[in-house]
């Protein structure tokens, strides 16, 4: 019976196994890294991580919608539990937001099942595809539904950020890979918007983790472009990019945790020549960032090259891709300039070995090592005939990109922005309120006394109070409703 259950509801294809393996590597790296964090209730984290592993395996392998949905909800609960482990207030609002999203996804999935797609597979109906994209949007941070991501991912403990940013956001795209095979024009445009918007945001960030979070949204945009275009090469580019970016971002977020521990600050200006303080960590961080920009010889180059096939014959599109690459280079080089290679302010840290070195190196190097292997073996993952990736062309292009971005950065004085506070739901809410006030012609507000959770609660409770207010209180009038109801029912008939 158990074997039948596996064979009937799970698809153990090569690609699924590769995704599963990637997820497991990311989880392992985060697990090793989490040893260094001294929050209480460590077992709580381990149990959540175990259930999380099972549930994302369910999501990746299953062909049954109901098992998929169970896995999806379990991922929500377990990531919520992991956020709680860091003692984070953001966890509660995360749960409520994700709950809204997963409920909508449940509705959409049942609509899809109702339309005859009883197992997870290609969907031809454009509207259903669109609904599905919106359904996974809240978890996978499609533009417009991404507002929570920089806040949650930057405030979570670093191993949890690595899991969230490295793999949880990819799960929605893995579903889209299986369903939206022929492409979806809305997803394509959403992807372009994500790359450009989040890239511009990342350029002006001063907090390292927020920068990484925005870069996640930007890179997810590339995946969305690949799936949305419907081009076969771009599709396989997305497959590769899901794996590569997941691993790279895990390494970077784990690294950010060690940087923050070492420097006791999250701002990139406080790194003050990171190279001189920790050479191995710097090297690994640079390697991770090179994957993001798609530097040749590393797997990031292969995936981005494939995704660029999405442009087809359109010239505008090709220039857009150059622009996107330069945008990525700018925010990466800006961070390197301020954080790692800043020469004007060199500052030595006297105390060393504040954490266990080998765990740090291993947890960061494990995903990067896998990426390096993939870089030479990517043809065995993608299932299309493809010639050699043109490395010389790639080198020339990269050098041109670097020169352009460096000159732009120099002209703009390396884009110095004043320290921004870590983003929070409060500030987001104030922004929304202020837009509303500006539209209504009222004064804007600067502070809110309560956080967003209370705000949601207040809105709901005002509805509740209103309903309670209009209902009769006295027993006489309550009893009077009985004959009125009967009369109304009789009248309706």
């Amino acid at each position, binding site marked *: 019976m158990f074997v039948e259950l596996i064979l009937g509801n799970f698809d153990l294809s090569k690609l699924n196994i590769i995704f599963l393996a990637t997820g497991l590597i990311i989880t392992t790296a985060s697990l090793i890294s989490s040893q260094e964090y001294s929050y209480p209730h460590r077992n709580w984290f381990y149990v959540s991580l175990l259930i999380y592993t099972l549930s994302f395996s369910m999501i990746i392998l299953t062909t049954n919608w109901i098992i998929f*949905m169970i896995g999806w*909800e379990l991922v929500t609960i377990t990531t919520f539990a992991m956020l709680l482990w860091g003692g984070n207030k953001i966890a509660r609002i995360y749960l*409520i937001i994700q709950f*809204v999203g997963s409920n909508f996804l*449940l509705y959409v999935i049942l609509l899809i099942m109702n339309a005859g797609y009883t197992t997870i597979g290609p969907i031809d109906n454009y509207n259903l595809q669109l609904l599905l994209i919106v359904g996974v949007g809240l978890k996978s941070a499609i533009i417009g539904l991404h507002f929570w991501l920089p806040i949650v991912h930057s405030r979570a403990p670093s191993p949890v950020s690595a899991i969230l940013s490295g793999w949880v956001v990819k799960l929605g795209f893995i579903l889209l890979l299986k369903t939206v095979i022929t492409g979806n024009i809305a997803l394509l445009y959403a992807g372009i918007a994500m790359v450009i918007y989040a890239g511009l945001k990342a350029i002006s960030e001063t907090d390292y983790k927020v920068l990484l979070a925005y870069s996640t949204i930007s890179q997810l945009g590339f995946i969305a472009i690949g799936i949305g275009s419907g081009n076969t090469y771009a599709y396989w580019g997305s497959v590769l990019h899901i794996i590569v970016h997941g691993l790279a971002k895990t390494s970077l977020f784990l690294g950010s945790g060690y940087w923050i521990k070492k420097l006791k600050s999250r701002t990139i200006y406080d790194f003050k020549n990171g190279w001189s303080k920790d050479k191995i960590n710097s090297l690994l961080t640079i390697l991770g960032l090179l994957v993001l920009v798609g530097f040749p010889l590393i797997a990031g180059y292969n995936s981005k090259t494939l995704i660029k096939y999405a442009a087809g014959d359109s010239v505008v599109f090709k220039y857009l891709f150059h622009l996107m690459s330069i945008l990525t280079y700018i925010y990466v080089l800006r961070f390197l300039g301020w954080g790692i290679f800043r020469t004007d302010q060199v500052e030595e840290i006297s105390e060393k070995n504040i954490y266990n070195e080998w765990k740090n190196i291993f947890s960061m190097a494990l995903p990067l090592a896998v990426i390096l292997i993939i870089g030479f073996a990517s043809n065995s993952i993608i299932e299309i005939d493809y010639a050699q990736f043109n490395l010389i062309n790639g080198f020339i292009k990269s050098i041109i990109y670097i020169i352009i971005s460096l000159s732009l950065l120099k002209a703009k004085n390396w884009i110095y922005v004043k320290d921004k506070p870590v983003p929070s739901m409060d500030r987001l809410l104030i922004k929304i309120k202020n837009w509303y006030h500006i539209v209504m012609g009222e004064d804007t507000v600067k502070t809110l006394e309560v956080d967003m959770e209370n705000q949601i609660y207040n809105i709901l409770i005002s509805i*509740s109070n209103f309903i309670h207010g209009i209902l009769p209180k006295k*027993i006489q009038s309550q009893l009077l409703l009985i004959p009125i109801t009967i009369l109304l029912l009789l009248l*309706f008939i």
Partner: protein
Amino acid sequence: MNDILIILIVLPIFTAFLIPLMDQWDKEKRKFLVISSNIIEISLLIIFVFNNIDKIKQGTFYLQYNLGEWLPPLGVIIKIDMLSLFFLILTNLLMVLLLFYSIGYIGDHEGKYYVLIFIIWGAMQGVLLTGDIFNLYVMLELILITSAPLIAFKRNREGTEAAIKYMFYGVIGGLLIFIAIILLYYTLGTLNYNEISKNFGSISNSIQSIIVVLFLSGIFIKIGIFPLHFWVAKVQSASPTPISALISGVLINIYIYDYIRFFWDVFGFEVLKNLKLDMIIIHIAILSGLIGIILALYEKDLKKMLAYSTIGHLGIIIATLTINTKSALIAGLFYVLGHSVMKISLFTTSGYLIQHTPTNYLEDFKGVAYKDKIIFAGFIIGAGGMVGFPPMIGFISRWFTIKSFLQSGYYIPPLIIIFGTLFAVVYYFRFIVNGFKKTHLEESFDFKLILSVLYRERIVRDISIVFVILVILLGLFFNVLYIPIVKVVESILSPVLYNFIL
């Protein structure tokens, strides 16, 4: 073999009359009477089910017992089919566990308590097994009369008020049903389910509609659908926890059974359709569901909040059933099953937790998580199930419900259900968050401690845990229940067997 049917009804009532006699002899031995009667009842049911297991598997199960050897048109009959059996098993299972819970929970006047609760048990079996509409009325009134004193069992002002309110509503509901029965007898000259179902179509349309509306309002008052729901919250809040659980989790199933039995079998669903009443019922029920869930957020009293949540879920159940497709009925029965188990688990766990607090209010719920972590985890699991998180049964029932709505072309009600669950997340969250707040509990701890004897506390705790485990097990192994429920639904949709007279 058919005699077991009548024994199932008589045994609890007989036990109820035996308890006062037992008290005259030795009060300490009362517990053994209660437990042994419990065990006999459940083992009778198990023997009964295993004797007829072949027919139950085929879905063609039907048995009948003629009271006093009088044949149907004149005599009162007792009969059972798949639908009755489903509710019978559910009721008995929950009642056995609730009685064990009561053994631990009820500290004083236990004798009276058991008398009343056993009569309720017998009357519930009567409602499920009877084949005679007047008999049904008698049993419903018996439930009303015996449950009212149980609501006022704490002998305080709120309890008495709630019981009086309950009596008002219950008597009016019963009266409406009674008028419907008189009209039926006046026009058809019979009280037997089969005879009514055969001849109901021959009644003129106006009288038909009056009968249906009166019966419907009576049942809706008893269930607590929106404009007629005002008794629910007060009653649940004032009564002792096992009684709240009984009303919210078990008694309501009985009324849902009546709703299904009458509108699918006795009157026939065609009548509702011809009167265009089914659409109205769906709209009222969905509105009731929404309002119940919204009002739950207003309440700061834990038990009132659970009561409003019951109103909300019951509205959704009634709406789902009234869609009247196979998948909708399957969803409805899953929802009934899931809701009763989850609601009872919430009541039992919170009943244990609020022993440590002076009142049921949100402010006093602070810090209970540190009093008993396992029970509080049970409370969270129950709440998660209600909201619809896997792997609890709530997820499965919500899945089937939304699916059946969409299959029948209703696109808005599922969105309302989803909107309602957002409220549900928020109102359960408030209590859970408050439970984790650290306060000086030592002072309030000894305020109201009924569970002074250790083994009583153990029973309450263990039964609560059993309910929580049931919630998870049902959610994990819902596949096991799927085929039996399909058989039940098939027997609802084609009630030919039930109308067969021996």
